[in-house]
């Protein structure tokens, strides 16, 4: 018989589950968000009640015993869209607390490899989206952009875009996670919402789009067309939100 911990899907909920694992020494085989959780036949599930105070204790413990780089790594990996992510991060914390800082150099350890895969994937997606997001100017002066990522990169994208467009109110909507990032010149915050009520486009929006599409098509060297190379750098799944590509998506 083995344990599976179910938490509410939040960061604090996950850390509370980690706390319980260490305090009860039950060492669960899986840590899962309760929504859509699939258990193995022999697993006994325990529902974890989120307690922010315990979550902070786990965070402090990770920073003290492994280091702040590990804390940043697990925080980032938690943004992953991988269904196994919580179990992978939990294992990394267990190994990390056992081995301490030496976990940073043990790159071939299975638990480290697993979390590095998540970490690299989320950073790669965020990096690509920094370029691929397209904003449209709305009538009310707000710029609106939409992404459909595999992970949940908004917490990585918002600081970047709010530094870049500090004088420009904008809204970046993550349709996968129903999450909206709002920047209002003073700062940014996230809002959970399944539905957006968008005002009509500003008058100058369509001419700008036309100019961009024109530029996009002019800048390619016709003698060197290479769709495979383009797809490699800019995978198809991003095309639906890129206005120069969505006629091809």
């Amino acid at each position: 018989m083995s344990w599976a911990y179910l938490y509410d899907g939040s960061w604090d909920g996950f850390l509370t589950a980690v706390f319980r694992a260490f305090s009860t020494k039950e060492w669960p085989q899986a840590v899962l968000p309760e929504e859509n959780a699939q258990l193995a036949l022999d697993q006994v599930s325990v529902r974890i009640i989120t307690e922010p105070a315990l979550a902070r204790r786990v965070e402090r413990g990770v920073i003290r015993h492994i280091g702040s780089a590990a804390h940043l790594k697990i925080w980032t990996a938690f943004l992953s869209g991988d269904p196994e992510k919580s179990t992978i991060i939990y294992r990394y914390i267990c190994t990390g607390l056992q081995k301490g800082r030496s976990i940073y150099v043990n790159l071939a350890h299975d638990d480290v490899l697993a979390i590095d895969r998540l970490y690299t994937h989320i950073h790669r997606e965020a990096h690509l989206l920094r370029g691929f997001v397209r904003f449209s100017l709305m009538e009310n002066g707000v710029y609106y952009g939409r992404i459909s990522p595999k992970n949940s990169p908004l917490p990585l994208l918002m600081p970047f875009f709010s530094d870049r467009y500090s004088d420009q109110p904008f809204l970046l909507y993550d349709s996968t996670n129903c999450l909206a990032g709002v920047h209002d010149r003073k700062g940014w915050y996230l809002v959970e919402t399944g539905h957006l009520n968008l005002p009509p486009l500003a008058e100058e929006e369509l001419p700008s789009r036309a100019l961009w599409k024109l530029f996009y098509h002019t800048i390619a060297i016709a003698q060197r067309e290479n769709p495979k190379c383009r797809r490699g750098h800019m995978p198809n799944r991003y095309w639906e939100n890129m206005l120069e590509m969505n006629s091809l998506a």
Partner: protein
Amino acid sequence: MSLPTQEKLQILSDSAKYDVACTSSGLDRGGEGKLGNTVASGICHSFAADGRCISLLKVLLSNSCVYDCKYCMNRRSNDVPRVTFTPRELAELTIAFYRRNYIEGLFLSSGVLRNPDYTMEQMCGVLQLLREEYRFRGYIHAKTIPGASLELVTRLGSLADRISVNLEFPSEASLQLLAPDKPKRSILRPMGLIRDQIEGNRTDLAVYRHAPQFAPAGQSTQMIIGATPDSDFQIMRLAESLYKKYTLKRVFYSAYIPVGGSDLLPAGQPVPLLREHRLYQADFLLRYYGFSAGEILSEQSPSLDPLLDPKCHWALRNLHCFPIEINRADLETLLRIPGIGPTGARKIVTARKSGALRFEDLRKMRIVLRRAAYFITCSGKYMPGIRFEQDFIYHNLVADTSRQPSGLSFAPIPEQLTLFSPAAPVPAALPGFGREAV
């Protein structure tokens, strides 16, 4: 007779499409409450149908030109419509694109309007408008105009992040033949000036934190490959001296595409992209791997091998430096292994602190062994199935077509299995080690 912006953009971006620029400049600059920032790694905003990244709004200020360079489609004697952006028009277009996250900044070049100084003044006008009126802190790459006064070059450098002077051709003879209005001196003098300004600026910044910056992303240059008979060895030696003497950040190579229609140029077939690709590979060996041009090529074998990348080629000619022991070699030595780059080498150096690495560990760490396997040992052992012999390695590397760039085809090497006689020996001057052998 002002044409709508649309038509101007079409003509002026079409003329700029052969220019190469990249925003991975190592320059990180925050927004500080203004519009725009820059990122050290650079950001690609889109990819064109030819697979090249689009990161900057790449345009000419004007395609009118008083020069008559044979390779250029904007040369005076070519009959094409001529247009010029007004500074305001171009600045507004840049800002409109930037605010929508279409671009990372502006790449500005120009044909020569009236005279070089006048053109440079116009270009500075655009940049000044962007930086001062629109408070734009994004990336700007500007081309200097050959023959412009040094004061104007200095002014351009204080407004742009990167400036470049185009070398156009790899040798002076080619330059004289094809671009008679651009003497070599008019190209190298501003290059030297820019280098001195950048260095001087570094000292100023060390003393006064708020000293105005000069071209913080450095300078680059570009040359056309294959329109002239210059060899790869000449090109690599030139690039090496540019990196050393002029501390350039990048040298860009562009394979020649016939657009000029001049008798002096090879007509018909464009230069194979593969040659450009190999030159870039060799260029990276110079910049990131501690190689020198003399190691990669020589007078005797002056062209890069189309079948093998330059590092494999070097390794095969220098088998006495191999095999390299993964668990002991230092970083510089690891960088010499074909198939292992800076990321992989650093991973190895870090990971082996926790214990000796096996082939299995390397594979788990996603270090690609396809090429490296022939040249390394882990704790003194070769990877199973590897024979450390020149012809064995050569045939296996060439036969591995999975990573060969497209457009390259060659007959597979027939392999005769024999029990007693040694495999068909590879001649001392390995075949395929010169371009003409293919």
